[in-house]
């Protein structure tokens, strides 16, 4: 029974992702035909950012609690009930909690401390939410397809300075955090703000350096578009055709730049300020830069955190996991006769693939957040400055040298696969006993004689 429920839930997720993307294509094509060329950007703005990102962020507020409960052998929130006949005895997987939380956030008093700087106090939640939200504009969620006779690109904007936009807006997010810490005129929030400032600025560098290798490999900083970074990942490093079915090792970012992937993942995780990088919050000690906030202003900070997770997962997917592309069989799939007649079905399927990759990455982020303990402040700085940044610089040099030898990215891919294999060997060969031994077991007991 439970397995059936969960299978149905998974199918519902697939179906709603498919349906949402199909609606995005249909609306885009309709707007293109009745309004002006490029009007689909507006429908993408509404459907991709306001519907997809915001709905997933809302659901994540519950998923975070429910998933963490499953990881910790708990049941999770299930007390909120809808008091209608037949529903009052069901927890509905905790979904009513979302409604309850929204109502609570909206109706609670939004308190401003007397000594706070009112203007910056009100500005901070907006500043921490808006740039992160706007980041999603450059992420393509599906292929460019003709719908109703017009080309519909599944991206809000495709500027030629794509990654620079990403770095610029990602670094703006620190202002919201620091302002919130400073403007609420509270010692603890100020501590949180200062920590956020130090942490985010040091990881900004690693964030930038980690993508330089990828920029060199793809010779582009544009995300979408024919020569964009996502489309280039559709090609194969080594590929063969089996009766029209293409198999091979794709030129995905994670294969040609595994170090870059790890660095970007770590740096992006630090940018989201979640455990193990939650120096800014430290729930158990200083509560964080938003300690004075209540009501929907606090809700903005909370939603910003989840939106940040989604956006960084989407960017990771776009840059390193091939976006909406399948690992193999992509060309065969695109050339199916059915999809020639109904291109929007192809687009919606690919969009579903994209969002599924995003969801997997979100799960990994949740998993990390609920597995590891918080870094100490000096450990965070040490990781940022002494490990991530030197590794990033090294990665740039190695990538550059290999690209000079071989512009087809094959030697880069070979090195990447070797690196991944090395990590796998390290994992599988580490002795199990050493991980299960209590710390300090081998230490001699202090002798009194």
């Amino acid at each position: 029974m439970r397995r059936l429920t969960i299978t149905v839930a998974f199918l519902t997720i697939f179906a709603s992702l498919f349906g949402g993307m199909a609606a995005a294509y249909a609306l885009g094509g309709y707007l293109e035909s009745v309004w002006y060329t490029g009007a689909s950007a507006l429908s993408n703005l509404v459907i991709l950012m306001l519907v997809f990102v915001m709905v997933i962020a809302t659901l994540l507020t519950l998923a975070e609690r429910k998933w963490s409960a499953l990881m910790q052998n708990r049941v999770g929130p299930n007390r909120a009930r809808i008091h209608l006949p037949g529903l009052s005895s069901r927890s509905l997987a905790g979904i009513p909690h979302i409604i309850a939380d929204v109502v609570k956030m909206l109706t609670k008093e939004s308190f401003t401390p007397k000594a706070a700087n009112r203007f910056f106090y009100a500005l901070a939640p907006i500043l921490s939410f808006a740039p992160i939200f706007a980041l999603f504009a450059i992420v393509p969620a599906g292929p460019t397809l003709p719908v109703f006779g017009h080309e519909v690109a599944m991206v809000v904007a495709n500027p030629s300075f794509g990654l620079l936009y990403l770095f610029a807006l990602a670094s703006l997010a620190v202002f919201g955090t620091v302002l919130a810490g400073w403007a609420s005129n509270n010692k603890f929030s100020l501590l949180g703000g200062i920590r956020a400032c130090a942490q985010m600025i040091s990881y900004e560098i690693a964030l930038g350096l980690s993508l330089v290798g990828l920029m060199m490999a793809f010779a582009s900083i544009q995300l979408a578009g024919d020569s964009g970074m996502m489309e280039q990942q559709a090609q194969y490093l080594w590929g063969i055709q089996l009766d029209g079915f293409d198999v091979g090792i794709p030129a995905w970012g994670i294969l040609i730049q595994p170090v870059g992937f790890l660095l970007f993942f770590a740096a992006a995780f630090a940018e989201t300020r979640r455990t193990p990088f939650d120096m800014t919050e430290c729930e158990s000690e200083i509560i964080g830069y938003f300690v004075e906030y209540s009501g929907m202003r606090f809700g903005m900070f909370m939603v910003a955190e989840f939106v940040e997770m989604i956006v960084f997962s989407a960017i990771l997917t776009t840059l390193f996991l091939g976006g909406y592309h399948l690992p193999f069989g992509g060309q065969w799939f695109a050339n199916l006769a059915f999809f020639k007649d109904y291109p929007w079905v192809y687009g919606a399927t690919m969009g579903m693939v994209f969002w599924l990759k995003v969801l997997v990455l979100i799960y990994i982020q949740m998993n990390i957040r609920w597995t590891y303990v918080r870094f100490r402040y000096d450990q965070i700085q040490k990781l940022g400055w002494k490990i991530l940044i030197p590794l990033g610089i090294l990665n740039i040099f190695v990538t550059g040298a290999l690209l000079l030898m071989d512009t087809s990215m094959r030697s880069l891919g070979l090195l990447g696969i070797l690196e991944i294999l090395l990590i796998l060997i390290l994992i599988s060969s580490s002795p199990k006993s050493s991980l299960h031994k209590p710390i300090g077991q081998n230490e001699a007991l202090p002798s009194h004689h």
Partner: protein
Amino acid sequence: MSHSESHSESHSENPKSAYDFWERLYVPALIKGMAITTRHFLRNLWSERDDNTEVLERKTQSLMATVEYPEQRVPYPTGYRGKHRLVPREDGKPRCVACYMCATACPSQCIYIEAGEYAPSDTNTASRVIEKYPTVFMVDVLRCIVCGLCVEACPKDALRMDTSVHTSPELERKAFLYAKERLLAGEPTQHPNDPWRHRKSSDEPLHAHKEAHTRIGEDP
């Protein structure tokens, strides 16, 4: 030379490093940690939840140990000391003879008794054979430490804590003073040596056959 030997050697030289080489590599340990969390996640997600209130006897793969409290309750163990009750006789009156043994034994002094005497004219034969009864029997459950010494002290099996019900929440402090009417509950109990009982062939109460139990002032 095996790995563990070199490991323990390095420990005796440098006791500060409690971690061996594999742990200091960090990344394998991190990924193993994530694998453990994911295993718990999938196990709890996929398997049916057994809501047996005996948590240790749960059968399914799910590792959840939750008992959903207000709907499900863990049965109390036998011998659980619950809310007090005054044990009634067959005729509905308390078995209590107002001897003050429980109030004396009580370490938190939460029992208050006022004794009354049955009038000689009382027509109830069961009442006539005993002298005293409580006019007021009050337990302050806020003071009670649920030690059960009152139950141990009672010579008449008139006070028990076998209800398996814990003190219910109240809105007023006054409501925690349980009066006689509230305490008098449960199955009526009688014992073979209860003085108001009769021999099968006799109309006289049992105690009439013993001098010691004769009521003072009553004609023999």
